[in-house]
């Protein structure tokens, strides 16, 4: 049992609304909205958390109240007309059926959105100052705009109430319209909405007053706000405390949901959504300070990944509700696991930021380690038992193999897991060696603990051979042998070493190193950090427009910050065309992808990252003896049907993860979950 668990499991009553415990999920935009409405996928995603015991789940991050704040860019929700109400009603029924409460976030994005989408209206703000993140130059609102938007907030609040939602919050954080009025970094007005803090607070007060009038004073309305914008020309901590105090004193808010920072540019965005390079709960001091000044409940989210930290935050009185939003994406059942005494089974968020990074490039939020999240209609969070138990052999204990073994064991099958290394984890063990990426090791750690607990016969340090596999007399064999790094196809590539060689310590480069990356992922960037920290002079070349191009928005700025700090030379738009030795050094030839101009570097090492190629040896030896020739029925996989082969007259052979083709951790885990859940 974690310390202070009882503090988390106390109900909280806000204006007659009783939330069953102190654990919540804040409003976010998972990209599941459809036609501007929270439909089945969105609802099932939150229903799973309600099933899992959460007290309050808030959905619809940045749900728009007006048609000039487009909902389309992140597949978000529009509360700008009454057609959303039936969806809210169905949503609320689903969540309430499991005893949890449901709220939404309402906002007008102001300048923090795009004009070239949906209705193609100009963006609005307090003043005409461009936001770097969205790149829009807004129009300064006139009195008509203010009147219209205030009314839109009020109408939206009424829709929430009619939709049976338990409450709502307005977003005045991350640079939305309300805080665009508050923040001197945006507001340059000279009328009654600008100048003094009192004037800058006016717009937001009018919004909340109108919402209260429309929804009734008994309806729970809160506000998400920053506790410190952490920029020189922005709101100071003292300003934020003053705002919180004034809004609470005026009875405008029933709770405050406090975050640290803002999100107007790349790095501040990454800081406001802290990844695994940050300590846990890095900004807890901000809600704590505001809680001292106000008498409404305080909520807080920001990298609270474990219940013990959340429990401490509540028990010590820093906050009233602790939001574990990403933690619920990793494990929507974490409260239930706590209350039922299975907290050791909680799959803890590692802070990879995979969920968020996907939505900022227009994708849907998916968890790097839990392939069922966001796929509740097709993928189970609790694996049902199979009717027929089978003998399953899994080869390889990387994330794909571990997940396959876990799911098969949960199904009730008898599972043997071979791993030639003496430690489970596969490629994650290598990735986790790179500086701040260490937290990735939490992924195999959980999986390994689960397969141990479920009684999988784990054979570490045992390389599978056809004889060893067949000796188990299996019904199903799953190849999760992963991949090995490719050294690419440049002339003289045999002179290069891989990022793996560096991270595993197989080579220990010194002097000058050219690191060439064709993947644009974490691998090369984090290897460059390792090399530079060891004292190498590193140039990182890539044929992308930027180094770490494929890394998402909450992680890339951290890589760039580190690379700049370490003096890594970044050379984008370069292709590696040849490597040849010269004396005891190497010459690497690079060609500019735009101009075609060639350059040479004389270096001590060339390190390359071209991703991995599948390890296929054992698969090749076994496929002829399998009943399915190693083929996977893709249509059955997508339809959620069992594979065609029963294994009655021999074994069926499948591939998952990088053994199938090199992709990423999520792909490996998803391959295994969707194959094995129907075995």
């Amino acid at each position, binding site marked *: 049992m974690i310390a202070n*668990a009882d503090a988390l499991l*106390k*109900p909280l009553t806000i204006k007659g609304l009783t939330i069953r415990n102190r654990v919540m999920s804040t409003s976010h935009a998972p990209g599941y909205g459809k036609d501007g409405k929270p439909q089945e996928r969105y609802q099932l995603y939150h229903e799973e958390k309600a099933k899992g015991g959460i007290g309050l789940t808030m959905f619809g991050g940045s749900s728009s109240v007006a048609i000039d704040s487009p909902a389309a860019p992140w597949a978000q929700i529009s509360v700008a007309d009454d057609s959303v109400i039936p969806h809210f009603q169905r949503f609320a029924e689903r969540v309430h059926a499991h005893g949890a409460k449901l709220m939404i976030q309402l906002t007008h994005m102001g300048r923090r959105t795009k004009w070239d989408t949906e209705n193609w209206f100009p963006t609005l703000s307090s003043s005409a100052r461009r936001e770097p993140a969205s790149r829009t130059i807004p129009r300064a609102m006139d009195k008509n705009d203010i009147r219209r938007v205030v009314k839109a907030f009020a109408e939206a609040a009424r829709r929430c109430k009619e939709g049976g939602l338990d409450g709502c919050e307005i977003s005045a954080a991350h640079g939305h319209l309300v805080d665009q009025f508050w923040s001197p970094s945006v507001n340059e007005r000279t009328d009654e909405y600008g100048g003094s803090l009192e004037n800058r607070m006016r717009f937001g007060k009018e919004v909340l007053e109108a919402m209260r009038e429309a929804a009734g004073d008994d309806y729970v309305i809160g506000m998400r706000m920053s506790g410190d914008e952490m920029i020189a020309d922005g709101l100071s901590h003292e300003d934020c405390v003053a705002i919180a105090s004034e809004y609470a004193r005026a009875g405008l808010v029933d709770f405050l949901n406090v975050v640290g920072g803002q999100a107007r540019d790349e790095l501040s965005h990454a800081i406001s959504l802290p990844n695994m390079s940050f300590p846990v709960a890095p900004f807890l001091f901000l809600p704590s300070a505001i809680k001292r000044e106000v008498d409404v409940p305080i909520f807080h989210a920001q990298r609270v990944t474990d219940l013990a930290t959340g429990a401490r935050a509540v028990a010590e009185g820093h906050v009233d509700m602790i939001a574990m939003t990403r933690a619920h994406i990793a494990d929507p059942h974490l409260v239930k696991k706590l209350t039922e*005494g299975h907290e050791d089974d909680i799959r803890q968020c590692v802070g990879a930021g995979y969920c968020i990074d996907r939505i900022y490039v227009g994708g849907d939020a998916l968890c790097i380690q839990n392939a069922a999240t966001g796929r509740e209609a097709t993928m189970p969070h609790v694996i049902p038992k199979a009717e027929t138990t089978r003998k399953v052999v899994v080869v390889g204990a990387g994330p794909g193999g571990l997940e396959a073994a876990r799911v098969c064991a949960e199904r009730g099958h008898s599972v043997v897991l071979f791993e030639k290394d003496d430690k489970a984890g596969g490629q994650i063990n290598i990735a986790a060696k790179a500086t701040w990426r260490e937290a990735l090791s939490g992924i195999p750690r959980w999986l390994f603990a689960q397969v141990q607990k479920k009684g999988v016969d784990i054979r570490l340090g045992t390389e599978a051979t056809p004889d060893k596999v067949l000796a188990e007399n299996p019904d199903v064999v799953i190849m999760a042998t992963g991949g090995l790094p490719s050294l690419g196809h440049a002339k003289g590539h045999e002179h290069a070493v891989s990022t793996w060689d560096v991270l595993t310590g197989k080579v220990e480069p010194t002097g000058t190193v050219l690191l060439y990356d064709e993947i644009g992922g974490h691998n090369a960037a984090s290897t460059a950090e390792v090399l530079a920290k060891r004292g190498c002079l590193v140039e990182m070349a890539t044929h992308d427009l930027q180094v770490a191009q494929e890394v998402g928005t909450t992680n890339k700025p951290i890589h760039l910050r580190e690379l700049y700090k370490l003096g890594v030379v970044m050379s984008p738009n370069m292709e590696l065309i040849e490597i040849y030795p010269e004396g005891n050094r190497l010459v690497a030839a690079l060609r500019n992808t735009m101009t075609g101009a060639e350059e040479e570097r004389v270096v001590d090492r060339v390190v390359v990252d071209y991703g991995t190629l599948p390890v296929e040896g054992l698969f090749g030896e076994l496929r002829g003896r399998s009943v399915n020739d190693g083929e996977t029925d893709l249509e059955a996989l997508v339809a959620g049907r*069992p594979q*065609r082969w*029963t294994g009655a007259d021999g074994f069926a052979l499948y591939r998952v993860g990088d053994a199938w083709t090199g992709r990423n951790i999520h792909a490996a885990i998803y391959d295994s979950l969707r194959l094995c859940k129907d075995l």
Partner: protein
Amino acid sequence: MTSSALSLAYVVLTLAVIAAVTAGRRVRLWRVGRPAAVNWLHGVMALPKRYLVDVHHVVGRDPFAARMHAFVAGGLLGGSALVLLTLVPALGGSRLYWALIAVLFAAMLIGGAMVGRRRYPQKPARLSGGRFQVLPLLLIGYATGAFLAALDAALAGTVWPLGWLGLWLAAAGGLGLVLQLDRGPMRHAFAGALHLVAHPRDGRFEGRRETALLPIDLDAPRLGTATPADFAWNRLVGFDACIQCGRCEVACPAFAAGQPLNPKRLIQDLAAAMVPGGTNANYSGSPYPNARPVAGRGGPEQPIVGAGAMIHPDTLWSCTTCRACVEECPMMIEHVDAIVSLRRFQTLELGAVPEKAAAPLAELRYADEPQGRPLKARTDFAAGLDLPLIGAKGSADILLWLGEGAYDLRYGRSLRALVRLLHLAKVDFAVLGAEERDCGDVARRLGDEATFQRLARENIATLATHSFRRILTADPHALHVLRNEYPAFGGSYEVIHHAAFLDELVAAGRLDVGALGIGVTYHDPCYLGRYNGEIDAPRRLLDRLGLSRVEMERSGKRSMCCGGGGGAPLSDIEGDRRIPDIRMAQASATGAGIVAVACPQCTAMLEGVTGNRPEVRDVAELVLDAVEAARVKPVARGVETVT
């Protein structure tokens, strides 16, 4: 009649007179006790039944001992009585009559031999040595002697040397027995008989459980027991009735855990303490495990408890009040009453409670809750579930008494299962919410009778303001207090335990249960099984869930305590092992994957056991599992094959 036989009659008569005088000395000791109301006529009339049925029901659990005792006691008392009657000439002259006497003493001889066989060459640890080791010799001597004398008389003096030899043997053996009547094994016979007649809880012989602690007058000049003279006289008789058979010692969980409590030794210390200048030096049974040093001296007006007295306080505070000793005692001694009475003096008069128990008692005094938590937080466990308050509802068929377990994270889970089941079965129920105070169980067992009585009165006053038919609780301690101990303060309720209630619901078809098909062993809570006799309903309920149920080596009314009763987890007296570890080992030994519990204390104690062990599940959780199993029938799926 032969002259040796006639002499035997006079020897027996003499022995009877010596016995009466010796016993009289002991009777004088008992008179220091406080007066007790005794229905003498009823007691004397009921004695044969109490002895032959109630006592032998207990003794008979050890069939060898039962037969041994029947032979010895029957032969000794029957034979001796018939010998006395030979002073009536018509009987003394009958050879047939003497043959009958010879048969009786032959039976006693067999019994005496059995006593010897039990003690030699090696006596079981639970039996006392010392004077008890001589007992078979004396019994065999007396029986052999009387048999020979009677045989000679039956044969009309044809074996007269044997008759005379027998006379001397009988005189020697008999004298040995009666001379230590006040301190030796034979004391149990007359003290035990009197104890049965004047038993302080005579309802036990009328089929009632009689397990409620008896209230004390808080205005009395002395609260609880400090000296032997503070006990009622019939309690002192009870201590003297102890035959040191050690069955209590075998049953005692604290003894098994190596805590400094041995119920047998405790009773012997109490018996020794009532003698002026008394000493514990003559005790020859198993000691208190890890015994704390005491002076071992006492007297009728001397303190019993203390390092300078007879019993160390740690001994008192080791008791879990599980009543296993009482349940096992063939002499019907009330150990737990004695312990609580001694605790009352320690707590109420001296304030000498164990260090870790002081804070909970203080919180109970000031906050009506042993950890000082707000009473309204008692319903926190159910946040998100509909938990109707009786204050808001007006009335309800069932009042759900939540108890202390509601504050506990683990037991909250069991209670949530129960609440969900009540809703599923459409039970009209409600809780008191913030109006529910602690029931007072722990305060009372820790000797704080004043706090208990106040809590009882206040709870009774609260309950009087609400309308309900029955009280339902998942806490056997609360059940016991509400059902059995509140009536003394004017609150009489029909109280039902959740296992019995769920059994009713399932039997009535109000809960549709599927079969769980897993192995389970049921752990009886002491306050449900021994205190309230409820051992069938939980088993019936589990059997309805399609579980394969196995019993532990100790179960039912002879079940072993989890270590959680009587405030023992608060007093926390150090031993060699933890009681719940011992109990869990018994559960593990059954091979069942689940140990089913029905009490918040048992849940907490057994959940605290580390290592590889069966899972601890409350019966309500298992019922909910079964209800869910019935609702989610697996969907049959066609097996696809390659064609």
